[in-house]
């Protein structure tokens, strides 16, 4: 039983770390602010969830796990509000997003609508 729980929390923690690292890479790889925002959003949602899930598996069900659930709930509730405030501030002060060509024509990029 111990081994199963340990293995599960290893898996959860590793998935969480992987997601966080992917998000961090995305923050570097994407070209402009609006797309970077989505990479950060990956680390704000599932990365937090999986790392907290790994810790909950280790702690068992007691007040500690309840606090961990509160941490996740708090981050999931405040994260979107902060993202929305950020993107709204950027949009209203005139930072124009580069739009891709849509309508399924092709994946040609580089044409900005600004």
């Amino acid at each position, binding site marked *: 039983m111990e081994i199963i729980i340990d293995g599960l929390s290893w898996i959860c923690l590793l998935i969480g*770390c992987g997601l966080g690292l992917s998000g961090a*890479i995305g*923050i*570097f790889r994407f070209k402009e602010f609006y797309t970077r925002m989505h990479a950060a959003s990956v680390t704000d949602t599932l990365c937090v969830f999986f790392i907290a899930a790994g810790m909950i598996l280790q702690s068992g069900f007691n007040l500690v796990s309840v606090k961990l659930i509160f*941490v996740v709930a708090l981050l999931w509730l405040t994260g979107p509000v*902060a993202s929305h405030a*950020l993107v709204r501030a950027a949009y209203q002060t005139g930072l124009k997003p580069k739009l891709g060509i849509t309508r399924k024509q092709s994946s040609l990029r580089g044409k900005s609508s600004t």
Partner: protein
Amino acid sequence: MMFAVTIMAILVIMGIALARAFLGPTIYDRILAVNMFGTKTVLFIAVYGFLTERPDFLDIALVYALINFIGVIAVLKFVERYPPPTATSKD
């Protein structure tokens, strides 16, 4: 062991976020990176509490989550009201 690995990964993520905060061409990139840094700090404090087997650290993590949120919102309010001349990128 598993928490040590997690802490190393979180430290790497925080380092990359800091680098983006230094590089980021617009001020919003910097705020985004700082916000992400704060979120990861919350996780870091929580995992550190588990690593040293002092779960009291979770309270600090909760408080840090709130402070981080309020701080980011306050900075954004300021930037929105007084946008710096370099706020918009040069395309």
